[in-house]
């Protein structure tokens, strides 16, 4: 795993505020941190502390009210929406708590999707290969509704890694699973992450999970503590 001194993620003075009927609500404020390539970082905190909002902003899925985010030195919000989408396609993988598979696509088609978006010609082969890697070689043509929660999350992990991303964002990846299945999924996630040498940023409120990461960022009411 190659480590170098240039951070892959740099966050400076990040803040997020949303207007509500009762006035402005601050979700995040004064966030500063950086993450080096190959690190595995947990973002922890209580419900409503702003963990998922932070992850969403780091992935360019939402726009901050203040501050900047640099991915591999590039200012994420200097890019337009399509520019950020392109960055995600080329460099970022996602695993969600609710799996977020497309119900009308088979397991194989779900995994092919990011490759097809990138116009890759070997999408089918690559997708089948990684599905075999996560132990779902026999489930390629199954639709999400025919898969168990654990299997769905394996498909999601396969989809996240199939593009060999430099960064993997995981949002409570075991939140919808029982503890035994959750453990197996986490093993798989860390295993493939190691194989591919990606930087992992994981939102979790599970302390034991956070301990498996190289360090943790703790959020409390929108601030890093």
């Amino acid at each position, binding site marked *: 795993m190659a480590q170098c001194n240039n951070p892959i993620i740099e966050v400076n003075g990040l803040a997020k505020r949303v207007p509500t009927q009762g006035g402005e609500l601050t979700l995040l404020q004064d966030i500063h941190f950086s993450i080096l390539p190959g690190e595995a970082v947990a973002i922890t905190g209580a419900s409503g502390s702003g963990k*998922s*909002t932070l992850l*969403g902003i780091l*992935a360019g*899925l*939402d726009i901050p009210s203040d501050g900047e985010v640099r991915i591999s030195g590039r200012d994420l919000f200097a890019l337009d*929406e*399509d520019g950020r*989408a*392109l*960055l*995600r*396609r*080329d460099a*970022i993988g*996602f695993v*969600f*708590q*609710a799996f*977020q*598979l*497309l*119900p*009308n*696509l088979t397991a194989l*088609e779900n995994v092919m*999707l*990011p490759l*097809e*978006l*990138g*116009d890759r010609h070997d999408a089918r082969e690559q997708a089948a290969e990684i599905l075999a890697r996560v132990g779902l070689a026999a489930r390629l043509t199954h639709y999400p509704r025919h898969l168990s929660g654990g299997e769905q999350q394996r498909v999601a992990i396969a*989809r996240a890694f199939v593009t060999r991303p430099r960064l993997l964002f995981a*949002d*409570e990846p075991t939140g919808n699973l029982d503890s035994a299945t959750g453990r197996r999924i986490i093993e798989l996630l860390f295993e493939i992450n190691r194989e591919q040498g990606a930087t992992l940023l994981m939102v979790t409120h599970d302390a034991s999970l956070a301990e498996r990461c190289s360090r943790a960022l703790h959020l409390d009411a929108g601030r890093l503590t």
Partner: protein
Amino acid sequence: MKGLRFALRMLRRDWQAGELRLLCMALVVAVASVTAVSFFTDRINQALELQAGELLGGDLKVTATRPISAAVRQLAREAGLAQAEVVEFPSMVMSDDAARLASIKAVSPAYPLRGGIHITKRSPAPPHAAQDMPQAGEVWLEPRLLRHLGLEIGDEVTLGNARLHITAALVNEPARASGTLFTLAPRLLLSLADLPATGLVQPASRVTYSLLLSGPADRIRAFRRAAEEVLASGARITGPEGARPEIRSALERGGRFLGLAALVSVMLAGIAIAMAARRFAGRRLDDCAIMRCFGASQREIVTAYFLELLFLAIFASLLGCLAGYLAQLGLVGLLGSLVALELPAPSFFPVVAGMLTGLVTVLGFALPALLHIGRVPALRVLRRELGALPAYSLSIYGAGIIAFGLLVVWQTGDWAMSAYALSGVVGVLLSLAGIAAMLIYLLRVWQHRVPRSWRFGVMSLTHRAGGNSIQVAAFGVGMTVLLLLTMVRVDLLASWENTLPPDTPNRFLINIQGDQVEELHRRFQAAGIGGAGIFPMVRGRLVAINGAPVAPDSYRDERAQRLVAREFNLSWAAQLQVDNEITAGSWWDEGKGGDGLSVEEGLARTLGIHLGDRLDFEVAGSIFSGQVSSLRKVAWDSFRVNFFVIAAPGILDGYPANHISSLYIPPGKAEDFSAIVRDYPNVTVIDVAAIMDYVRVVMERIVLAVDYVFVFTLLSGLLVLFATIQATLDERIRENAIMRTLGAGRAQLVRALLVEFAAVGLLAGLVASGAATLLGMVLGARVFHLPYALDPVMILLGTLAGGVGVCIAGYLGTRRVLDRPPLQTLMERA
């Protein structure tokens, strides 16, 4: 009361949240389509009722093909009724430069007994009610007749042997439309006193005699009873209820057809309503589960939603009635001039009809989905999979189909016809949906081969095969009808004209007298106008077959009843016409015909006439008899003169006859032809080209009106499209968020949407063009008996129009999917 207030509050909130707008719009379109037709037919009906006396010209009218008998006149005198006489027939009217076919009406001074006639004595002075009828030597002409003849008020005009002075332009005559639908020939009104001088009324002329009567209702009733006893055959009595039969019959058939056409929109709107209601109910399941948790009873929940729906139905139906009233003005614009009646304001009935349509549609299509909500268990708050709505259950669509069936029965008043109409609409919808599903399945098999940039759109289409098939079918039905109407209008008429040989007769000459036949024949030949067969014609009514009397009630078939009730044209000939073919028996040899009759095979079949039967005809009060010696097949569409019954030469001698001919006048001979016929003022010329132009104009108008009603169908199809889009909107928003997260650019997502909707539209266009072509071919072969060729341009245009239309509508309906930040969606889902 508490429930009422609660329901109103819910309605306000749901309306503000935009949840009910599509349902409301669909209902407005459904009610507007039905009420537009209803308002229009109601106004014509009212015009006919309110102006019945004026339209008839009296309280009662006795009509006959021969002068009204003395016995009837005597009865009217004894009853103390006012009388006016009218004689009507078609004839040529001539100026020094032009000759025109006109509808001649000679009236006695007392005419009309009810209503009035509007004339102008000095153009362009405004018209006024005429105090008297034209005096002897005077005529009044409809303005378009004046225009055609190049004449003005004050000029003279030739009618038969008489030269008459034009003293007024006849602007409006309630007893006869001045519009175009039923009035091929414009009117000329003259005094009855001048009729003999014209020399136009000959024993066998086609003349209608009428006696108009007015007086107190009881005396009119008494007269009617007595007169029916002494009425000669071929004569009939008409009361105000029978005024303007041509409009009544057109109204009954046309109104019913337009009403059914409007119901197609109701059916499609119903589908949109069912879909919108299902989505609405689906989104209320959690609310209801929580309400149940807090102690609301099933009854309270159902009542609240029922009332909410009822308020919405009332509001939307009222809006629909208003839209229908406005749309009706368009129908009046298209068809009003054809019926030319003073149309009164509509009655309240169409509003009632509209409200009922709205309520039945909502109850049928929307209520079942909402009733499901009442059954949601409180446990759903813990287990979300409980109490989910069934996908497309029979209980949801079954109730809608029953409601629609009731509307059809109400519209037609005929169970059998309703069953046909209902199964027709449902059948077409299911067929189109089935074909669409099949095409989508084929596309699914083939989708990995489509260009990469289109693939997401095609996949989106194939993954929503069910909803998309319904979209294709709903949109396709509207398009099928519009395309079919375009084809019928353009192609079938053109196709028919093309089937006619170039020398097809284009002029008919009627009313030729026996002593003019030889001379006319000679003059036509000298002018190089050939092929003019001039045929004798005697008018007679069939009274007995093999000695057994026949009357209209001897037959169950409507056509047979009509044929027996009226006089038809008999002729005699030594030789069989070239376009006739003997199918049974044999044609007579020259001079050996005896009392043989040759009968057209269709007529023989309808009336049950066989070879060897003896037929008795009443001709001018005496009986003429003959034996059927052959049956003939006649090409009626040849535009040549043909007869139902032809007698062997000799046996009709002595009966009053006039002659008829049809000729082909090449463009270069038109002047010579006009010059010849101008010397025979009694001969009436009917220009086929003018009739064809007239038919085309009338048909264009009617087809436009039908198109107009079917625009509502297209609108409803569009609403189904929006309803299906809305039904999948949540799913699309989520898919969009995931795709964006995985790195899809906006252009990629827009392209996927455009490809999906263009494909839906192209499929709808293709299926509709195919269905319209197929129906066009079936109609051509079975109804119009015309070859109908495939029109690739029409199919291509129809397909493209569908593609572009749905593409634009679909993009507009889903645009907001693209504008939603993905994180918001993903966090909501989590």
